[in-house]
């Protein structure tokens, strides 16, 4: 029953990260004095989850059977759909989780010295802990939904660490770029999860893998495409490759774990995890080879022309990941898995070593090989990183921006006017304007919606119109026609009565009245 404790593995680093964040909030680990405590907490948590994994391994391996799917509890269920909180502990998951836990622990240990006296020490480790938990969740989760949670948390922590120096515009822009690119892959992931639910009624990895192409047909291909898209974005395959070089903006140890060794491989992990699914479709396998090959070439050529340590490491990583995809596409999933594990450890060492590289190098770097130098167009393309960034800009960023502009214009010109909101022209936007109005001392502000009886926007104008109609009615009929009318009527009546009275008091009319009276009586 030891495997029932597996949920602690991803949770421990996450808890450590929450603890550090609480400390930042309440101030019990701030500043340089808090560094020891912070480091202790995060290292202990990472060490514990590694030890727990080892214990699970030593518990299972001698018996020659791995527990497989471990159900902890049901997360939630609505109608026919239910999502369990379960973990999948097979050979792949166990091996990779050990790699993740080990590399994370070592990187964290390395960072304690590396980040010493950096502003944001605590923040760094809080995010790193979160990332550690997320990565462990990705490889251990028993269903696509849970993996997706880890997938997203890893994305978020990657965003936060790229923007670690958030006062630098470059860093924040690159972080946004990386995050948005990752989100494109996420749409694929969500699509795949949705279709798994619809087709299979279940998102547990074994159930997805048991999906039969003959039964589900084309829809199964959509699931594959979805997962492949997610994997391509996360592992920075062509055409998503450009974000990963931008991501090097973060502190070096974070680059090591994120892009050098762990997160960049999660796409490969996803494909290996779905091996039975992909094996059903030769077409998809071919796509894997194609993309892998393109990426490998991209990484190889790009790597040759780089002039700084981290970028060349990054390109070579991309190339290796491309190779792993080729292995997958050829059906050599086992080899891809081994490649993944070894490469992760090896690349982590490279990256962590990168800051000291210049001290260790005794001869100048090799120049760009002659065959590349001679082919000008290829050289240019390599230096320009195959214009992937420009391509993304032209095809996605600029249209999106233009559309945003159009929508904003629509909002300002039509919606704001119709609703009657103060727009940017009418509202006071600066302190200087405010002072000006204050000196003016009229008490009236431009665009002041408080003008008596004046409405703005469609409804406001309707209200204004209706109010003025009512007001006219009130003035002319109720007030003038009513009170003043009544009073003047009474005055007129009084006037006439007075005259009548005067006439009646004259003898001749009196006489007439008497005669009339008699006439009536008689």
């Amino acid at each position: 029953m030891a495997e029932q404790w597996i949920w602690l593995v991803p949770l421990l680093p996450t808890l450590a990260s929450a603890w550090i964040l609480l400390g930042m909030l309440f101030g019990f680990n701030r500043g340089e004095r808090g560094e020891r405590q912070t480091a202790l907490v995060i290292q202990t948590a990472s060490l514990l989850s590694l030890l727990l994994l080892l214990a699970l391994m030593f518990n299972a391996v001698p018996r020659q059977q791995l527990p497989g799917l471990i159900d902890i509890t049901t997360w939630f269920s609505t109608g026919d759909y239910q999502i369990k909180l379960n973990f999948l502990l097979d050979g792949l998951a166990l091996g990779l989780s050990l790699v993740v836990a080990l590399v994370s622990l070592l990187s964290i240990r390395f960072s304690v010295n590396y980040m010493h006296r950096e502003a944001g020490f605590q923040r760094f480790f809080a995010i790193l802990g979160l990332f550690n938990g997320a990565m462990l969740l990705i490889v251990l989760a028993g269903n696509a939904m849970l993996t997706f949670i880890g997938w997203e948390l890893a994305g978020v922590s990657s965003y936060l660490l790229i923007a670690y120096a958030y006062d630098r515009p470059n860093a924040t822009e690159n972080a946004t770029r990386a995050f948005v690119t990752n989100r494109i892959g996420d749409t694929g992931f969500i699509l795949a999860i949705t279709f798994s639910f619809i087709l299979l009624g279940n998102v547990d990895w074994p159930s997805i893998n048991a999906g039969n192409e003959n039964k589900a047909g084309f829809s199964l291909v959509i699931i594959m495409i979805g997962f492949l898209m997610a994997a391509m974005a996360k592992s920075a395959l062509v055409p998503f490759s450009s974000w990963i070089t931008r991501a090097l903006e973060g502190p070096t140890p974070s680059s090591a774990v994120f892009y050098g060794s762990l997160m960049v491989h999660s796409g490969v992990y996803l494909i290996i995890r779905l091996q039975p699914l992909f094996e059903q479709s030769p077409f998809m396998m071919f796509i894997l080879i194609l993309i892998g090959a393109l990426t490998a070439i991209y990484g190889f050529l790009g790597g040759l022309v780089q002039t700084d340590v981290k970028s060349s490491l990054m390109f070579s990583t991309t190339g290796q990941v491309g190779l792993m995809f080729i292995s997958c596409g050829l059906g050599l999933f086992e080899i891809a898995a081994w490649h993944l594990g070894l490469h992760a450890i090896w690349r982590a060492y490279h990256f962590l070593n990168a800051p000291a590289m210049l001290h260790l190098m005794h001869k100048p770097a090799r120049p760009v090989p002659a065959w590349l130098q001679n082919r000008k167009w290829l050289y240019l393309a390599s230096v320009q990183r195959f214009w992937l960034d420009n391509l993304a800009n032209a095809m996605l960023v600029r249209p999106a921006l233009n559309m945003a502009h159009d929508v904003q214009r629509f909002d300002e010109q039509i919606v704001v006017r119709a609703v009657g909101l103060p727009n940017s022209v009418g509202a006071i936007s600066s302190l200087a304007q405010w002072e000006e109005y204050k000196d003016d001392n009229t008490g009236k502000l431009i665009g002041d919606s408080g003008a008596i009886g004046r409405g703005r926007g469609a409804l406001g104008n309707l209200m204004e119109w209706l109010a003025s109609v009512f007001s006219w009615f009130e003035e002319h009929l109720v007030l003038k026609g009513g009170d003043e009318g009544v009073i003047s009527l009474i005055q007129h009546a009084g006037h006439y009565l007075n005259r009548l009275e005067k006439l009646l008091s004259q003898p001749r009319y009196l006489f007439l009245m008497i005669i009339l009276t008699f006439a009536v009586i008689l």
Partner: protein
Amino acid sequence: MGVLTQLLLIPLLGALLILLTPKQWQSLIRPIAILHALATLILAWSLIASFDTSLTSLQFAEHHVWNSRLGTAYSLGIDGFSFPMVLLATLLCLIAIMASGSINKMMKGYYLLILLLETAMLGVFLAQDWTLFYIFWELTLLPLFFLIDRWGGKQRHQASLNFVLYTMGGSAFMLISLLVLFDTLPGHTFNMQAMIESAAGLDPDVQVLIFLGLLIGFGVKMPIFPLHGWLPLAHVEAPSPISILLSGVLLKMGSYGLIRAATMLPEAVVSMQNFLAGIALFSLIYGGLLAWRQSDMKGMIAYSSVSHMGVVLLGIATLNVTGLTGAVMQMVAHGLVAGLMFLMIGLLYERTHTRDVNHYSSLIRTTPRFAFFTVLAFIAAVGLPGTAGFIAELHALIGGYERWGWVVVLLTVGVMISAAYAIRTVGRLFTGPIRDEMRDIADLKATEMLAAGVLSLGIVLMGVFPARVLELFSASVNVLGASFAKFKGL
């Protein structure tokens, strides 16, 4: 002598004392008035303890035959409809007198008339005989005419004349209706209870005619469109304490009378139900929009009263328990809210001598206490949850929905309009750039705080714990609602 008679006599006694006060003791006049208003208040509110909310019949009833040939009697009593009004009237009278500190010409006459007015108003709510009711009804005119005409603003003569003419005109219709009723009924009595019983046998067409007469009489007072012509001028021109009484209590006399008339002639009300609701909704929006157009704050509150009394009429027109509960609740709530608004604006006017909202700005810095109570008053006028008005509007809305469905969405339009002018006024008064001439306005004094605080507390307490208040009149409302239920294919 019954306790209700005492209630009527205490203010009268105060008026008499003031009349007899020698000229050199003029400083005693105000304390005497406050004392008697306070005594009336204490006596009225002490009845809460012995008022049995489960009873549907009259309580503390007194009955003395007056003229046996005419069937008139000196008959007093309170039930669930009149008791809240009595409580409200005594409270607002005290507050009005307390807020009259700035009246310093002809003090003797002023306080005498106010106390006389209090007796007359209480009489209207206490009377259980239509003749007595009519007498007290007309008696309120007398002090009010002089109060507006002598202590009012620039157009006071026109305002007071208008007020009296309108009300008298309405009263004439009311009187004719009452006489017709008296004449057609076999019992030949003016006793309200007896009339209810015998009116049930009348021909429906006659009932409608009689009810129309009463509707005009009470509608002028309430006021309902288009009989509200007297209201804007009278409210604006009256001195502020009198405005408090006008909108706080006098308007409620109209709706109270209408409820009594509806009790008497249920068949007529049922047949006119849609018409009443139509007028109510129109008044609601009409008053709201006109309030929105006013830059004179008193004018704004006056028109907002038209709008708020529309809710009362709508509640009555639903003829179901929920709606009627809303109507009575709105009467109480509007009494407090309008009272508070007129109190605040009146006190502000004393200090600045302008009621034009455009002349104000940024008062929150100079007069934070003012700002607090005024904002509370305006928020309550909108009927924000947590204030008494919300409970009332919600009941009226639910009751109306039960009867007419989606049409009552117009009520919420009215609420939105009221939000428009309330928020606008609050913004105008308290925010914006500081003005030099508004820099030295004194904040509320202790007694003024007390008056405003009592009203605010009432508004909030009723909004948060409405159960106790609803309980006061639930028995009577249930009976009335049940009496309509038998007519309904509703």
